[in-house]
Every structure is written in C-alpha cells, then in structure tokens.
C-alpha cells in the first residue's frame, strides 16, 4: 500500500483553522526555515482511508487470541477508555492551580494507595512511563539508599540469566555493574550460586516472581534474605504480577522496591508499543528517595511533622472548639489569623483537599516531566475499582488456570521447559522438533499467523533453546484455549509431515517473511522523497 507521502497532492488539505484575527507577525528571515517540511498534503477522506487501511494491516487484542508471553495481553475494557477521555481529565493543564485539579490528584492518590495494597509496599510513584522506566527509577532508589548511608562500595546488581534484557540494561543506566547468576535445572535461582555472588559490594538483586519460565520460586524468602543479610536490597520486576494479585505480595516476600506495568496487569491497552505506565513502589525507608513531589492531604489534622503548621493547626482546633485564648502578642495574632484562614479552607472544602508536598531533599529528582502517563493511570484506576477486592484475585486465579489448562492440552507435543504446573504462563522448547524436522520455534510462530493467532513470545527466556512462551491471560474463554491447542497440535503434525508449508509460512498475511538482514545492513529509516 502507499505511504501517506505518496498519497499527497500539492495544494490538498483540510480546513481546520480560521484566519488569523491579529496582525500577522513577521519572523526575521534568518531565524526561519528555508523550505517547508514535506508533510503530507491530503484531504480528510484521504487521511481517514489511509489510517483505516493501516489498521486493517495490524492485529490487536480485539482481533483475536494474543498469547504473547510476559506481555499480559488481556482484554482492554472499553469503559476505561471512555473515562479517560472525559474532558474533566483531558483538558486539565498539569500546572494549573491545585484547587482546580483536585480530581486529578484524587486519581493519583487512590491509584497509589491501591497499588501499595496490592504489592505490599508503603509508598508509590506514578511518574515512570513504562516498565523499563520503572526499573531505572527503582535502581536509582537503590543507589540513593546506599549513597545516603555512605555505602558507596555497593556497585553490583545481581540479575538471573533468565531475566528480561531491560533488567541488566536499567541497572547499567543507574551506574551499576551487572552480575549474572545461572538458573538451576528447575529454572529457579541457584541459591548456592547466589550465596557465592553476594558480598559487601552487593547493591541489590533484580528478580521477577513468578520468574520468566512461569514458575513461582519457592525459595523466595531465602533468596531475599541472603541479599538483605549481605546488605543489599531486593527489586521486584512486576512483569508477572498478573499471576499473584490478591494471592501473594512482593512486599511480603522480602522485596524493597517494585515496579508494576499498568499496561500489562491493569488492562490498559498497549497502543502498538505504548504509552504504558510503570509505577514504582517501595518500603518506607526508601520513600524519601522517591522522584517528584508526594501527594498529601492539605492541612489535615494528622501530624505533618511541620512544626509551624502544627502550631497553626492547634490554634485552628481551639478556634473550632471556641476555646482559643485572646492573642497576647503580634506573633500569636499572626498564628490566630493563619488558623482562621486554615479553618475557613477546611470548612469550605467538601473533602480533604489534596496537594503536592515538598520534594524530599533526598529525592532522586525526576525521571520525566510532570506526574506520569496520567490518562493511563485513570484507565488502570477504573479497572481496579471495577474489579475490587473480589475481582483482583479472581483475575490472577483465572490467568493461572488458563495457562495450566492450555499447557495440559499441548505439553505431550510441546515439551515444557521446566516444571509440572505453571503460574500465568509457560515456556515450551522446540529443540527436539527442530532436530527431527528442521522446524524451529520461529516456523511454528509464523505458522500460527496463518491460523489467525498472534504467536507466543519467541526465543525468550534466553536460557531455553527454541523457546515459545505462552501467556493466555484470564480474559480468554475455554473454547479459545481449546482452539489454540488444536492449532498448535495441527502445526506439530504439519512440521512432521509437510515441513515446507511451515518454512514458507505465513502466506495469508499482507506480506511474507521479511529481509531483516538487508534492513539492518543498509538502513532506510525514512521515506526517500522523489527529487
């Protein structure tokens, strides 16, 4: 199909802006650009048809089964989208007066609280925009913690060899050296090797549990204790949180810092690669290092630790009770005046007023501008409120049930890499099939495309050869799983009887397999406009 630049016709356009109603200001030619950018010139109908055609050449959760392991491609509820498009959320300037943004602050405060409860953490920041961004934030928190204790020799982060690539990359961005430790034959952390790896240079451990092969590491308490005893902190990668919500909490497993992917676990859509949201939670001792300003209830009656404010609050309480003594001096007069204002504010406010508190002097700073991918948080909050305390664990239960069910239907043909049961996802290895028939994990994946299913994650984790990782999620029905199992079995049969079909697959898609080598050797990264 055409690129939008190829559909462009000089002079076409859309009628969008009125004429300028003030004198047009003439920009000094030296500061101006020589030629206009070659953006498309298209009519409205050209544009809409172009993007409709692009959408037809894509595949989303709405189009069918999406068992992409470690990505938690669950259904994205439509009410969440509608709520996030309310003008009361979309038209709010991030720097407008807080009294006019109370709803936004409430969204952030509620989401922080619920996410703390689900993960077992004490504080939460919603600033990070994605999972890897959360990892970087978490690593910086750990760095700040050790630095604040002048414990600067802690330069090493331990990461299992089964980890997602973002883990070591995020640790390196925070200035840490990465120590990789091998997994056991059961796919778990090798506790003996971990003991050997820790020392007074250990800053922390990064782990996901259930791990990347879909198994819950039963030694988790021992593992996190080894790190704590060595003086390090434990970081929980929330990629697999969908397996354990309401069943177990990272905070109860010895983790000090976690990140969550709202675009996985909390049902916000992936948008073809973002925007996501990667909130980071931590235990109380780390809260002072969090990025951005904390949200708090303004002038609430609880102790804020701010001495001056506490004096004013006591005076306001006395005024409210009618027991305030007459002021003895100017200072007391000032206090009484402030107390009166405070009281008026409190009486006026319908509920407790929310505000941003001061940024902690020990804060790591900011990992981006403003407060995070706010509308994504709105969607996730809508989801949490919908599911509630009953629905949250139910989601995890059914995610685990669906994964085990699908696994049981294919494991005789597709050997499971590790374990008898699994949590929310499982990894199969096609090493034997490849040796026997020449059909690789990639070929099976491409074969699934011809059946209209999105393939599982391929070649991950790196410790499993010819890996396919399947995560059905809780929002798929039994028939969908049965059909998918049928197709996988059929593909296995084709691999044995007529492998050429799979080498040629996919054939029903808009394009066939691509020349990735050519793309990387001689990169063409933008449209070449005709001269």
């Amino acid at each position, binding site marked *: 199909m055409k690129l939008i630049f190829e559909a462009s016709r000089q002079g076409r356009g859309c009628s969008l802006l009125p004429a300028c109603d003030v004198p047009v200001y003439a920009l000094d030619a030296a500061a101006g650009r020589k030629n206009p950018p070659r953006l498309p010139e298209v009519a409205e109908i050209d544009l809409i048809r172009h993007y409709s055609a692009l959408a037809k050449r894509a595949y989303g959760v709405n189009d069918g089964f999406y068992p992409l392991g470690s990505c938690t491609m669950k259904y994205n509820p439509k009410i969440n989208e509608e709520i996030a498009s309310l003008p009361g959320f979309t038209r709010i300037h991030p720097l407008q007066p807080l009294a006019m943004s109370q709803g936004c602050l409430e969204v952030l405060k509620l989401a922080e609280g619920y996410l703390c409860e689900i993960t077992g953490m004490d504080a939460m920041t919603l600033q990070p925009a994605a999972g890897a961004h959360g990892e970087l934030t978490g690593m910086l928190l750990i760095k700040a913690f050790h630095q604040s204790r002048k414990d600067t020799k802690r330069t090493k982060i331990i990461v299992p060899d089964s980890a997602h690539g973002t883990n070591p990359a995020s640790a390196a961005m925070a200035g840490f050296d990465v120590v990789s430790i091998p997994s056991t034959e059961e796919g778990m952390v090798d506790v003996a090797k971990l003991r050997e790896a820790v020392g007074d240079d250990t800053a922390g451990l990064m782990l996901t549990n259930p791990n990347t092969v879909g198994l819950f590491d039963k030694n988790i308490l021992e593992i996190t204790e080894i790190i704590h005893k060595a003086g390090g902190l434990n970081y929980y990668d929330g990629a697999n949180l969908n397996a354990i919500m309401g069943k177990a909490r990272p905070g109860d497993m010895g983790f000090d810092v976690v990140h969550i992917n709202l675009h996985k676990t909390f049902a916000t859509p992936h948008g073809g690669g973002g925007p996501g949201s990667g909130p980071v939670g931590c235990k109380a001792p780390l809260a002072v290092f969090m990025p951005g300003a904390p949200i708090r209830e303004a002038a609430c009656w609880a102790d804020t630790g701010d001495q001056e404010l506490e004096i004013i609050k006591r005076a306001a309480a006395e005024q409210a009770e009618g027991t305030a003594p007459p002021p003895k001096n100017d200072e007391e007069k000032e206090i009484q005046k402030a107390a009166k204002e405070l009281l008026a504010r409190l009486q006026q406010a319908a509920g407790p007023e929310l505000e941003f508190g001061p940024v902690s002097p020990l804060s790591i700073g900011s990992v981006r501008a403003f407060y995070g991918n706010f509308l994504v948080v709105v969607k996730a909050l809508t989801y949490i409120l919908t599911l509630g305390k009953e629905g949250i664990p139910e989601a995890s239960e059914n995610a685990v049930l669906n994964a085990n069910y699908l696994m049981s239907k294919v494991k005789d043909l597709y050997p499971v890499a590790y374990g008898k049961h699994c949590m929310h996802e499982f990894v199969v290895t096609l090493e034997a099939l490849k040796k026997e028939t020449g059909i690789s994990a990639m070929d099976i994946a491409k074969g699934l495309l011809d059946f209209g299913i999105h393939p599982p994650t391929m070649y991950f984790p790196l410790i499993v050869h010819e890996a396919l990782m399947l995560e059905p999620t809780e929002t798929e029905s039994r028939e969908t799983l049965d059909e998918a199992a049928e197709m996988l079995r059929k593909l296995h049969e084709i691999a044995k009887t007529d492998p050429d079909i799979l080498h040629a697959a996919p054939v029903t898609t808009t394009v066939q397999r691509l020349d990735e080598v050519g793309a990387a*050797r001689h990169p063409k990264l933008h449209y070449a406009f005709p001269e």
Partner: protein
Amino acid sequence: MNYPKELFYMKSHEWVKFLDDATALVGISDHAQDALGDLVFVNLPQAEDAVTAGESFADVESVKAVSDVYSPVTGTIAEINEALLDSPELLNQDPYGAWMIKVVNVTDHADLLSAEDYEKMIAEEA
C-alpha cells in the same frame, strides 16, 4: 570450513596474521562468521587506539545478536578496515580477506592455536 595454515587462532574464534614480528592483521574465523550468521554491522575502534591481548576491541552484530571480538595481540592500531563499515557482509563472504584491524608495535600475544589445533577444537565442540 577453511582454516588457513599461515594464521593463528584464538579459542574465541579470532585469527591473527603476523606480517612481521611487530605487525599483525586481525579478523574473525570462518567458523565464527558461520555461527554468527549474516553480519549486519561491525563496530570498529579507531586508528591509534591501543589493544590488549585477550581484551575486546570491537563487536559484530547480526540481526538478533551482538558478539565481542577479542584481540589476539597487544599493540597499537595502525589502520582499520573501513570497507567493513559499509559492507559488513565481507566478513561472511571472505573472513580471511576481511581483516578488521592492523596492529603495529606488537609487544605481546594471547594463547594462540595453530590451524590444526583450532580445527581440532572446533571438531570437539561440535
């Protein structure tokens, strides 16, 4: 697979050709290029950089992997093979013609294998 006799090899699959006592060409072996698959990019150091025997001096990329390349010798880079920057496929097509760096003032070298021993090692690994 082809392992020219006049070259020496490292266990990590680099070759070295001594032009004289203090000058050497370095590249990757036929076995290495085959195992890596179609190479799409070579990340080379700059002339005048120092290299140390046994330490990484470059990396090579295929579509889905990146691998370090280790130096068999200690010395100073006199020249890099700039043709590789535009045509990394030369490493696949002619691994022994497509040298990566020319090292001068060679003062030391890593443990090196003869062509025969290298070939034996590869046969054992397979």
